């Protein structure tokens, strides 16, 4: 049941981002951090990137937010371990994804990307 809900939510999300280009419409959610500070947060560009990604435009997608190259696989792994590991297929993956070293690497990269994009890429 829970698994079905998760799948449904994921599919709905993908559907919305497939049909709507956040670049061209104004009613999609805004980043509160960006709205308040004018700075980009680590995830700014994710919605636009998702739209491009779902249309198969890899280059455009990762131009919006290259950090998704790291976030999406990691998030995918975590979701697999968390909700789709009833049979223990992903135990190995779970050990890797939930390992403290892995989480810390992700955190450091995330913060580095956050600072870096605002210093070097802010006008880009």
């Amino acid at each position, binding site marked *: 049941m829970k698994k079905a809900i998760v799948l449904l939510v994921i599919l709905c999300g993908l559907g919305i981002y497939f049909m709507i280009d956040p670049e061209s419409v*104004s009613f999609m959610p805004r980043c509160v*951090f960006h709205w308040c500070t004018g700075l980009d947060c680590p995830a700014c560009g994710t919605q636009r990137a998702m739209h491009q990604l779902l249309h198969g435009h890899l280059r455009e997608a990762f131009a919006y937010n290259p950090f998704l190259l790291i976030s999406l696989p990691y998030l995918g792994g975590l979701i697999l371990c968390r909700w789709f590991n009833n049979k223990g297929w992903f135990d190995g993956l779970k050990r890797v994804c939930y390992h403290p070293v892995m989480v810390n690497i992700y955190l450091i990269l995330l913060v580095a990307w956050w600072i870096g994009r605002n210093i070097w890429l802010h006008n880009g």
Partner: protein
Amino acid sequence: MEYYFYLNDRNEQQGPISADQLASRGVTLNTKVWKQGMSQWQSVSEIPELVALFEQQQRGATPPPPPPAFDTVPPTPRPQPVPSKPDNLLVWSILTTVLCCLPLGIVAIVYSSKVDSLWTEGKYEEARKAAESAKIYCLVSLGLGIIGGIIGFLAGFLSAL
């Protein structure tokens, strides 16, 4: 099997009977018994092999006594039941970071990453608190994300008018 003589209530000599029949004849630990080779009459309680035999027969008749409590050794404290590990909410933390575009998600990730390591160190209470904090930051992040969505929607709606 050894054969014993014993003295009954009226101090009359009885026997000989085999040792394992003594109890069934009403012989108690205080009854005087004698067998060949002994210098004089002795109480059953003074003859270790008979005491052992009596005890063995008693055990056969009644259920074995509960395991002995060691008076000298204080009873080991029962290990506290280990509460179940709280969910570390890592998935939610990263989801809110990535999808809600909010730096608060990063705080949530930090707390999430602490949950497991605190847990393995046995700091259950702190692990639970870290999980609690992660949850709060996730929810705040999610809430602000939704507010951001509404603001975005309203802004777009107003500018379209």
